[in-house]
Every structure is written in C-alpha cells, then in structure tokens.
C-alpha cells in the first residue's frame, strides 16, 4: 500500500513545497499591491485608466513564454533586476526564488486584481458616506466596512491567485532554472519527469496538482453559492 508520503519522491515533495511557498508569497504580496490599485481603478476616474488596465491584463492573453522572455531580460544581469540584485550582492535575479516571485506577481496579477475591482465597484456609496457621518475615518471605514463587505472578492482573489501561481509553467521555465529547493516548482518537476520518460512519477505529481486545484476551486464556488443565497456569513 502506498501511503501519502510515499506517493511522491522527496524531490517531488520539495518541488511541491517550493510551489506552495511561491504561491503563498505571491498571493500575499498581490493582495497588498492590488488593494489600492483595484480601489483606484474601480472608484476613481482618471485619464489613462484603460491603458493601465490593458497593460495589467496582458498576462491573460500573452503566451507565458513571451512574458518569461521579457522577464528574463529584465531580471538578468544586464537588466534593471540585475542591477538591483548586485546591490544585494547577487549576480542576477533570474534563476532565483525572488526572481520567481517577481515573475509570478506579474503573471498572476490580473487574477487577483479583477475580483477585488469587482468587489469595490459594487460597494454602496451611501453606506460609505454614512460610515463617515457615523464617525469613521477613511482607514477605519476600510477595515470596518470595505473589508467585510468585500470578503467574497478577497477570498476569490486569494484562491484564484494561489491556484494560478501553482499552475504557472511557461514563465518559470524561462526564468526559473529548476534549482531543487529554490526554483524547481511542481509543474517544472512534472515536465522533467515526462522528458525523462518517468511516467509513474509524472502521474502521481499530476494527480496531486489536479486534486489540489480542484479542491481550492470547489471550495471557492461552494462559498460563492452560499453567499448568493443571501447569507452574509
């Protein structure tokens, strides 16, 4: 009988762990970045907002290899990322975990931005105004009104961002370099198993990724359904 731990080799567990770490760090950073960005896009009228939105949505339509190629140039020793890396004493940001995080931020941004933007757009202006009249400062209003009312948006954003980063392949292939424990993520490990003709390990890893993604999305949609039925919890 194969137990859970024996199902994957330790190298694959490590790759999966890198994937999960990468997804977690990416999602947390994206939630922080996208909150003000989504607020600005959803609730302010500025010239040039459509162009900003179009640029941020590019990862949805570009082949990941195109994105990866540009990121490689940017992060490499001759790009701004390389210049920045030298300040920290590294040669380059490419083929490093921080580099992967930067790539994932770009790649998964639209998946976090969009749900937050929708959630902010549907907030009721009168309730926001009344919160002010009731004595809430803008900061207080964000935590006491916006955050609770945009909960579903935040949950969707986190789930989609996490799942999408977990499923990232093209970009990490270009800028990752498959260093075990550092940049070798589960999707790349799977690719390498297939390249090497090791189908039994490929099967197991693929199944784990499939189930993980399905469970996350299932949880999200179940929750959405319950909320649509009218309950606020």
């Amino acid at each position, binding site marked *: 009988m194969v137990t859970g731990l024996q199902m994957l080799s330790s190298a694959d567990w490590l790759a999966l762990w890198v994937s999960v770490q990468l997804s977690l760090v990416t999602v947390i950073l994206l939630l922080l970045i996208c909150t003000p960005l989504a607020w600005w896009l959803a609730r302010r009228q500025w010239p040039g907002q459509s162009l900003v939105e179009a640029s941020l949505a590019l990862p949805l339509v570009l082949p990941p290899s195109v994105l990866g190629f540009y990121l490689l140039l940017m992060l490499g020793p001759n790009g701004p990322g390389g210049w920045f890396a030298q300040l920290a004493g590294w040669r380059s940001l490419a083929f490093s975990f921080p580099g992967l995080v930067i790539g994932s931020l770009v790649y998964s941004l639209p998946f976090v931005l969009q749900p937050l933007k929708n959630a902010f757009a549907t907030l009721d202006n009168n309730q926001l105004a009344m919160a002010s009249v009731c*004595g809430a400062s803008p900061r207080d209003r964000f935590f006491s009104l916006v955050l609770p009312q945009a909960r579903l948006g935040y949950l969707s954003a986190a789930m989609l961002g996490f799942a999408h980063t977990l499923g990232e392949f093209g970009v990490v292939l270009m800028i990752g370099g498959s260093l075990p424990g550092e940049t070798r993520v589960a999707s790349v490990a799977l690719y390498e198993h297939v390249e090497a003709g090791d189908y039994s390990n490929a099967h197991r890893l693929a199944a784990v990724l499939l189930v993980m993604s399905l469970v996350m999305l299932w949880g999200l949609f179940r929750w959405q359904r319950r909320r649509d039925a009218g309950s606020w919890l």
Partner: protein
Amino acid sequence: MSLEFSLTGKAGNLTIQAGGHLPASGVTVLFGSSGTGKSTLLKMLAGLYPCTGTIRFADQLWQDEPEGALLPVWQRPLGMLMQQPALFRHLSVRGNLDYVQRRRGKAEDLDGIIAATRIEPLLGRSVQQLSGGEAQRVALARALASQPELLLLDEPLSAVDLPHRESLLDMILAVSRTVPILYVTHSMDELLMLADQVWLMEQGQLIAQGPVAQALASLTGPLAQRSDATSLLSGDCGDYDPADHLQTVTVGQTSLLVPSAQIRARGASVRLRIAARDVSLCRQPPQQSSILNILPVTVDEVSPLGAGQHLVRLSLQSQVLLARLSSRSVRELNIVAGEAVFAQVKAVALV
C-alpha cells in the same frame, strides 16, 4: 445661530451658490422641486460633496476653503438620514447602532433611542430583512445614537410606505425639540407638518429664508403661486365635542371648529392648515350655511395669478389666511385691500 454658511459648488450643469443661517432649534425645511440642488447642498454642508466657501457650526469652523481649513465629515457632530436608509448590510440592526456607539461613544441613552424609534423587536435581525419603514426607523436610531448636534435629513420618507410615514414624522418632530434639523423635501405636506422655518431653493440658489407662515403667505413667493397654496394658523385648543368629533381651536379672539379623531389637552398649541382653494369670501355673513367656520377678516392684498384666478391675502387676528378666488368674483364683489369681509372656510385640518 447654529449653522452659518456661504458655499459655491457644481453639481453637473447646475451651479450651487447658497448662504444662510440655520436657527439653533426647530425644523428648517429646505424646499424646492426636484433637481434644484437641495440634496447636493445638504451633502456640501455635511462635507460629503466638494465645494468652496465657509461653514461654521456654533463655535467650530467646519470649512474655510480655499483657505484650507476643513474639518472632515467624521469629526463633525452631525447625524444624517438619506432617501435610502443605507444601513450597513454586513451588520445586524444592533450592529448598526453599535457601529456609531463605538465611534461617537456618547449616547448613554441608547435604550431611550431604541424605545423612541420602536425598533426593539428588530435588534437581532439582519438589515436585509427589514421593510422600508423599519429600515428608515433603524437609520433614524443610528443617526440619533451619535448624539448629533445637527440632523440633516434628505427626503427620509421617500422609501417609506404611506401608512408608516406619519409615525416617522412624529418621531422626527419629537427629535426636533432637542436637535436642530435641516429637512430636504419637495412635499408640501411634509413642509406643512414639520417646518418652523423654510428655505426655498431654485436653480441652485436659496431664494428665500424665513418662518414658515411668512413663506407661505408671501403672495409673490413660489409657495403661494402653487395650486396647493396653504395657510398655517397657530391656535390653542378649547373644548372637544366627542359626538361630532369637533375640536374648538381659538385663533386670537376667533374660534374655529376643526375635525379631529382624538381629544387634545385644553390650552395645547396646535397648527391649523387651510388650503387657499378651500376659502371663499362674502360681504355679509351667510345665514344657514353648511360651512362651520365663517371668520371675520380684513383684506390685506389682492394679487392676480393669471388664468382667471386671483390670490387674496387676508388678515385674521394678525395671522394670515390666503384665499384663491376667480378673478370675476374679485371684480364683482369689489374686493380691495383694507375692506372687512367674511371668509368661509370649507376645510381645515390640524397639522
């Protein structure tokens, strides 16, 4: 003066330019037809809509733009009620009250507010399960829970069904004894029931400010020109005849009989409303008329309304009564200023 302001701002194509003083007590009704900028002016006063100019409340400077001084909304001691209750939908009724309580933290008498607005049975409910009238009562309670020194009400009855309006109006009247209220409406009924003072707004400007009886009685003013022009008289209650449901009300030396379903305390001050179209004039007191109230009055001023109509201002014991008559009657009876005549009042009601 509680509130003093002079403001300029834009709302779409409309330029709002208004200044005034709000009395330190009672209800001031900001009256005008739709789209004249009343709600926007209210939001400007609250600090919810950008504008330039000054706003002073008691000894606080709320705004002095563009000089720079600006007290943000959340620090102004005001309560507000909008057309929509705008309750926080992620909180229960109780949660909505606590939200204010925690931030303003001054209302010791939350139980008193809950009792006065009769929302006790609603406290545990989600705000999404409330009817329009219930929700607006909760919104009023929420506004009161901040212990406001000024209440801004923007057509608070528009989302409330007819049978529940009266009780909400009574609650608002009760509040107005302790807190000055600025009340936006385009309803003549609400004006007659609530107003101590009236501010008339047209095209973004405040065109007149004054006591309600005076605003109603100004023949050239917009209220008298309306087909529902009405006079308000103040009087004192006398005897009540329970068999005929008639309340005696004395206005100066004159007594009127007013239909009333309930008895009122003798000597209580009341307001009477008499529509100008329900008043006719005669030179001699008619004999055996079905009309109960025939009052000796003096003609003050006669003004043509056009379309064969005249408006006549009468004085009754130093109060004003309006009559809307056909121009032919005015000519044939030769009604001119200074004459003593009799006013037949076909309908009169307690406000």
